[in-house]
């Protein structure tokens, strides 16, 4: 079974960057890393291919400047190869533009039985990309998977709901988005890290994918930021060091608010 995993390479969340006042988008310089949310998809894919007894995991990513640092992490976990789309014309792409590119890159990655994404990325968190990819590829989909098993030509998913979960069955090929915690991502071994260095990364531009530059990037984004405002801050707080009696402050506040 062949599984394609979409993996986003993002700025380190520990160092969130800032909005560029000119372009009104997030400044993204410096090294990118594998979005932790996608490490679950990578692990899930590796386990499913293992369980199927054959096939491989291919990564698909769209990132600026030919960035491969995050891809190498996922390759070190055990993915076989990657397709990386990098093109200056992609700057400013919204979720729809990104999905158009990813859909073409998934086709380029070869015949996939299953396509995995995270439910949402850590930096963009639009959460619409999985369904947009599925629609562009005319595939069925199941979002918010908290467990996945593949049974011959169909996939069985426990799909998270407000109040529990639904068992959902879907024929393959399909797009499935996975929640954090669906599996425990493995740490790359030293051997894995060394092997990753020589695994193939097929770097392509828009021309190679046959994507019209006018439909993506700034040109294709049908939205614009008209204002950035500082949000109303909360009133200053009282912070006290617990001297063994601080619980009383909570009691007093609850009493004042007539909760107790």
């Amino acid at each position, binding site marked *: 079974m062949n599984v394609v995993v979409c993996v986003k390479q993002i700025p380190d969340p520990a160092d969130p960057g800032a909005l560029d006042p000119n372009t009104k988008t997030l400044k993204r310089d410096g090294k990118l890393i594998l979005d932790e949310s996608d490490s679950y998809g990578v692990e899930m894919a590796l386990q499913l291919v293992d369980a199927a007894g054959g096939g491989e995991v291919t990564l698909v990513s769209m990132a600026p400047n030919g960035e491969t640092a995050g891809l190498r992490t996922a390759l070190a976990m055990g993915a076989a190869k990657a397709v990386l789309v990098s093109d200056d014309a992609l700057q400013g792409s919204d979720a729809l533009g990104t999905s158009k590119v990813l859909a073409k890159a998934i086709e380029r990655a070869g015949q996939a039985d299953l396509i995995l994404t995270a439910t949402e990325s850590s930096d963009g968190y639009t959460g619409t990309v999985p369904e947009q990819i599925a629609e562009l590829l005319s595939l069925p989909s199941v979002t918010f998977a908290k467990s996945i098993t593949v049974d011959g030509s169909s996939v069985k998913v426990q799909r998270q709901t407000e109040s529990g979960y639904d068992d959902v*069955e879907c*024929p393959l090929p399909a797009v499935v988005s996975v929640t954090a915690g669906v599996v425990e991502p493995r740490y790359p071994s030293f051997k894995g890290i060394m092997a990753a260095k020589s695994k193939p990364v097929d770097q392509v531009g828009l021309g190679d994918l046959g994507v019209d530059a006018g439909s993506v990037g700034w040109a294709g984004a049908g939205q614009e930021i008209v204002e950035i405002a500082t*949000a109303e801050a909360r009133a200053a707080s009282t912070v006290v060091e617990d001297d063994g009696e601080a619980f009383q402050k909570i009691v007093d506040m609850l009493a004042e608010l007539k909760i107790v």
Partner: protein
Amino acid sequence: MALSKIWVFGESSNGKATSTTLELLAKARELAGTVEVVATSADLAAEVGAHGATKVLVVGGTDGKLLGPAVAGAVAAAVAAGNGPDAVFLATSYDGRDVAGRLSVKLDAPVITNVVNLVERDGGLAGVVPVFGGTQDVYTKFTTDKTNLFLIRPKSFAAEESGGGAAAVEDLAAADNGATGAAVVTNRFVEEKTGPSLDDAAVVVAGGRGLGDKDNYALVENLAKQLGAAPGASRAIVDAGWVPYSYQVGQTGKVVKPDVYIAAGISGATQHLVGMKGSKHIIAINKDPEAPIFSVADLGIVGDVNKVLPKLLEALQAR
């Protein structure tokens, strides 16, 4: 009024409209002359009518299916036929996001996501989206004349009755969605949860990794019981398996707006803050004086949760 017609994707659970559906209706009514609901059942007609919708447009044949392809297909067909709305409001919910993603491709129109407010700008609508843990608000507008798609966070608006009668029920013609609609639901599991729900409890007591150990979550539960509150959690302890996902507060969990939110051993990551920042009063207990949770707390206790909570409980029981 900037827009003449808005459609709200109406969701229900146990035959009742979700609270977010009613919240979206309240805002839609403020912004457009005609507000209609797109739903997969006519059950909601009386309820959404009372909240200002004049019609329920029913997408049929969705029993046992995931809703994304069918609802998006029917709405796109209406748009193509020239009967569509100026804007569609959907909740940031499981099905809301599915419908929005599919619809976006069918209409080749972008979606503005994570919206917490909507304002009129230059004759159109701008979505207000908080960034950087809610310290800044970004206003985004569409630049095309395509249907405006907004994914809106729960609890962004207050639901409000309009005094209207039951909405008229009409069918919205289904489209052929080919292979895309092939996912079927074979079983539904509902986790038993007693006591007040996170959605509407006046008090929420939430615990995080600072509790140190799964067993210590009992402190949170006991305090919640004592206060008639709903117990909640950070994602860290949901992922660790201490409590079920339905307890999770935050960006990928529930958005709560209680009168009082007590955060015990929670650091206050931006993804947690977006789910509880709107609470009227916030009390935080954390042993690290630099924890970001203190930036939103009205009362912060720098201390050990496992010492403060037992004493607090004892004091409340003694009252």
